[in-house]
């Protein structure tokens, strides 16, 4: 074969734009049939998850909405439309309003405590990992471990810890020269005790979420900030904090929802063998607990359904407010 170094002059009339497309091998199936096949596969893949959602979430939610307007009992077939009567009862029910305040108290303490503690621990773990400290991986596992243990089991342990007579909590307090507390037997300290348990149990999850967020902050930005002369707190305040704001927003959102729905730990810690969870003197009766007690202890299902809807409305409103704030504060890259 001869190869010449000079470019051959194009002949007059050469079509420089001619461009023969490369032919691809196509499936032998007709186009419409292939589209139908693709759709069937897509719906087939979605079906299991959709079925679970519809059966265990949407249908019960719709039914909940339905019975909130009726006088309905699980033991009786007689149902009676009562309109907004269930909601009117709630407005005039002091215990319901008290439960909302208790839930709000629980949430207001839980959210900042969750964010500050989990972010603090995540920063320490990140520092330990980046400086290649020994045992950093073990600490990370240890922090996450409480979250994977059953909440009821750990709550029972915390009941022992908060025992006013021989619990570890008062043992530590008295050794520090502080007065012993009544904890779960005290109207003032029962809810803080539950909050401590909830924090201990949930913190691991939020630490992992913050660790993921921190790992998304490019190393170069931290290095360039150091070169720029920024101190540690300036780097955190001006670089890390804005860049992990989406993570913080997610943690706040998740923590808000979980706090308003808190049930298991309260039931396990304040119920005891004699029942009557939410005590002492309704000090730990949150909205979610009251919904359960109204439905399954006092068997007022319609009233519990109305309570649930109010709870749903509160969580929905808070979420939308947070979303509105986040759109103005959170920085998405």
């Amino acid at each position: 074969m001869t190869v010449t170094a000079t470019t051959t002059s194009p002949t007059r009339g050469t079509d420089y734009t001619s461009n023969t497309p490369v032919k691809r091998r196509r499936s032998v199936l007709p186009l419409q049939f292939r589209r139908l096949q693709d759709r069937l596969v897509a719906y087939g893949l979605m079906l299991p998850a959709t079925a679970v959602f519809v059966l265990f979430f949407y249908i019960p939610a719709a039914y909940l909405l339905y019975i909130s307007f009726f006088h309905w009992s699980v033991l009786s077939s007689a149902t009676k439309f009562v309109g907004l009567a269930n909601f009117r009862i709630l407005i005039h029910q002091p215990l319901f309003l008290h439960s909302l305040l208790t839930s709000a108290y629980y949430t207001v303490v839980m959210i900042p405590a969750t964010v500050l503690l989990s972010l603090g621990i995540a920063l320490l773990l990140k520092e330990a990992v980046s400086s290649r400290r020994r045992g950093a991986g073990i600490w990370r596992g240890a922090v996450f471990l409480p979250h994977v243990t059953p909440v009821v089991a750990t709550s029972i342990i915390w009941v022992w810890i908060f025992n006013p007579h021989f619990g570890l909590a008062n043992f530590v307090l008295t050794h520090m020269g502080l007065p012993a507390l009544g904890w779960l037997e005290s109207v003032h300290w029962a809810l803080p005790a539950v909050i401590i348990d909830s924090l201990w149990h949930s913190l691991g999850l939020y630490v992992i979420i913050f660790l993921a967020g921190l790992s998304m902050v490019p190393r170069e930005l931290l290095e360039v900030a150091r070169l720029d002369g920024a101190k540690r707190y300036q780097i955190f305040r001006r670089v890390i904090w804005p860049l992990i704001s989406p993570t913080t927003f997610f943690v706040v959102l998740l923590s808000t929802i979980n706090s308003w729905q808190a049930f298991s730990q309260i039931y396990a810690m304040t119920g005891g063998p004699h029942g009557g969870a939410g005590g002492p003197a309704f000090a730990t009766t949150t909205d979610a607990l009251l919904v359960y007690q109204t439905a399954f202890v006092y068997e007022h299902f319609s009233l519990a359904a109305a309570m649930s809807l109010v709870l749903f409305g509160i969580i929905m409103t808070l979420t939308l407010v947070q979303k509105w704030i986040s759109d103005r504060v959170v920085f998405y890259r």
Partner: protein
Amino acid sequence: MAEIVMKNVSKHYGKKEEKAAVEDVSLTIGEGEFVVLLGPSGCGKTTILRMLAGLEDPTAGEIWFGDRLMNDQPPDARSVGMVFQNYALYPHMTVYDNLAFGLKARGVPKATIKRRVHEMAELLGVGSVISHRPKELSGGQRQRVALGRALVRDPAVFLMDEPLSNLDANLREQMRLELARIHSHVKVTTVYVTHDQNEALTLADRVVVMDGGRIRQVGTPGDVYAKPADTFVAGFVGSPGMNLWTLEWEEAGEGISLGNGALQLPRSFLPVLEAAGRNVTVGIRPEHLGMSLVKADVKVACNAEFFENLGSHTQLHARLASTQAESPDSDSPRLVARLDPAASIDSGERVILTAPAGAVSLFDAGTGVCMEDENAGYIDSASRYSPLVDSTLRDRPLT
């Protein structure tokens, strides 16, 4: 501005520090000098830059900025400005805030910050986008902001880690000129890391060629190109790199024959060759090979294989051809020559290329180190391209 002195600096990684990224590097960079660290990926050039910035601690050796030992100084105490490969702009801040961040962190008065940021923005041509965030900027604008952020603090040392590698070819060329202009304006001691030899040769006062964590050659761009210290530098610098052939030599009549007549050198090379032993590595840059009617000192016989037409010139890919070989030998050493685009040679054709004696570099065949040679030197640009095709030289045996 500061003079940088590195004394026997090493950096090892691994649990037992068994992996050497930088090994026994000693280098002095003068005040206001623009030095480029050039080398392939993994050669340790970025590690040196990070050690200068204080982002990595050297395993051994000393780093001095002027009369201050920097080994234990944190990055913020070094007065270093650094531009990263991916710009590392704060994505949540405007251009103004990016430029002002370092000044704010150091407690500079607000009025001074405002003045200096606006001056820097104007110098770099980003004044019109000062309230924009990085994602709203083009690649070139981001690059300028990154430069400005490093320069606005008046650093004693300016470090750049492949700052142009994310730009397209046209913008890279434009920014290269811009960098040269900025450096001539601010005259700050600059260390620039790149694997792009065009950047290195056009920007640098001196080029430091690195490989395997060690410095292979330090010199002006002209020196590094024309007088490579060893075969690595000869092969790495230049595109394509220098042709390198390890051949056996013998005296033949009035000249010297190498590779059984594939290469012919004048007798002036004899003292160097005698010092080298029977085998020597000969290097000639592709652009110094040509097909000339002018009486040539050096002749290279080869069999053409194929061509690359690059518009401004044609690259001939061939193999050396000894006089004893009856037919082209696929095992003989490769050769690349940069010829005039008008050159018309057939594939498989035997061609004799010529070069001036000054274009030949000789290296020790064992160590690869360049041998002192009075013939070696700069080639004037006029003799680099030989547009004349000398058909009379074709197929003529070397004598």
